[in-house]
């Protein structure tokens, strides 16, 4: 369960001040896969950042039940001067209690992200094309209670990660920021539409889509 309690957030100061959320109250239940849609720049990622705790609200609070894992931070937290394996060992140690389990997770993540040939290479030397896969593999393998996802892996090119992640999303609470209605309909059980600094929660996808089409655009 995630509870947004009178949440306000704006960026910039004075004339340039742009408000993203004003006095938002929302209870997001655990269980359904919740997609977040809205216009470009409406604050989809900001919402995830606020829930993950990397962005502080101007006013209000975020209460979150269980342990969240935010996809946006995983790449950021890889140290450039450590090898892929060293980085993964650090990360997996946080989410496991036994070293056996940790090594297990590392192997799975390396396999899923197709980073096995690079495992002993420094993170800064890994080709940029291979880096984005890591975060989805990590999200699919590590045991957290709430997944905060910024986008989804490509279902065609990265089918194995995609499948694993789908499986994982069914087991825990999930919040995904999505670029369009198509993926909302395809992957989610419930939807949040961001419109005019407010959040609108819909239990059913159909209603979310109807609202989006009516208020925002086709």
């Amino acid at each position, binding site marked *: 369960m995630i509870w947004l309690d009178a949440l306000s957030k704006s960026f910039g100061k004075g004339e340039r001040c742009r408000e993203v959320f004003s006095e938002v109250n929302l209870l997001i239940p655990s269980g359904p896969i919740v997609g977040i849609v809205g216009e470009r720049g409406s604050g989809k990622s900001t919402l995830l950042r606020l829930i993950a705790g990397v962005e502080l609200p101007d006013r209000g609070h975020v209460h979150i039940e269980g342990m969240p894992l935010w996809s946006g931070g995983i790449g950021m937290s890889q140290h450039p001067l450590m090898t892929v394996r060293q980085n993964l060992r*650090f990360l997996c140690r946080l989410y496991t209690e036994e070293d056996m389990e940790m090594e297990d997770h590392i192997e799975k993540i390396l396999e899923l992200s197709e980073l096995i040939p690079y495992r002993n290479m420094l993170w800064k030397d890994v080709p940029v094309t291979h880096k984005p896969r890591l975060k989805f593999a990590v999200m699919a393998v590590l045991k957290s209670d709430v997944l905060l996802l910024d986008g989804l892996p490509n279902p065609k090119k990265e089918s194995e990660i995609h499948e694993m992640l789908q499986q994982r999303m069914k087991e825990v609470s999930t919040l995904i920021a999505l670029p369009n209605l198509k993926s909302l309909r395809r992957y989610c059980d419930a939807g949040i539409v961001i419109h005019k600094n407010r959040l609108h929660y819909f239990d059913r996808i159909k209603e979310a889509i109807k609202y989006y089409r009516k208020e925002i655009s086709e």
Partner: protein
Amino acid sequence: MSEYLLKLLHRVNGFSPLDYAAQWMEIELEEEKSAIRRFGRIVYALFLRQLQTRLGGEVTGFIWVVLQPLVMILLFTVMHAVISGRSSSSYDVVVFMGSGMIPFFLFRTILQTSINVFKQNRSLYFYPQVKPIDAFLANALLESSIYGIVTLILLSLAMLVGVDVIPKDFDWVIVGILWLILLAMSWGLLLGVFNLFYPVVGRFVSFLTLPLLILSAVFFPVNILPPLAREWILYNPVVHFMELIHGSYLSSLDTRYVDYGYMIEWTIVPLFLGLWLYRRSEWKFVAQ
């Protein structure tokens, strides 16, 4: 009456309220234990991470850490010999320099790294398991371990050359060093929290640590100073630590100028102030 009720309950349930209490306490204890275990695991993970990235991840980094105090010790020993002649001291100058400088460098390193540690590990705080203070503790632990190894290497070197490095009062030397580590940590915590919100603090401190080497009685005992200078230099808390370590290490020196109450004040006050400020602002660290 209540005893009777307890017995009745026991007969009905086959289970006494005391059993419930015992079981409940056991669960509490188990939870506490696993919480401590988890905390240890996080600090260990951060310790390894910092170990892998400090020293540039290369052997040359470690060699430099060993060489730096060695060079300084030898340099100051030679300077001492040049300035005051060979036989003027009643103690072994190399041992005096070593016993002062290694703890002092450890103090300075913990202080300087603690100030930046909150900022350096900022990309990890969104993992809810990682608290900024864990990174702080891991850092202090790492620096202390590195200097522990450096000390062992330098002591072995000295023994090989034939220097008598056995301290007069081993226990008090250890107390002095551990206390100095605590002093560095309490100031590091306080200034580290400040540095996150006012970066000028960090620059100010690194500027300040330069004269600190001269003003901390690292390479001379305070009893050689004229009374007025001695009175002034004793306002510096680090001087007391140096005097404690020197006085306990070398048999011809003593600890008569050490003011333990003064040392306690300078340790406790920043420690609690730092912890209080940290608790108040911890939730803001991730976005700083």
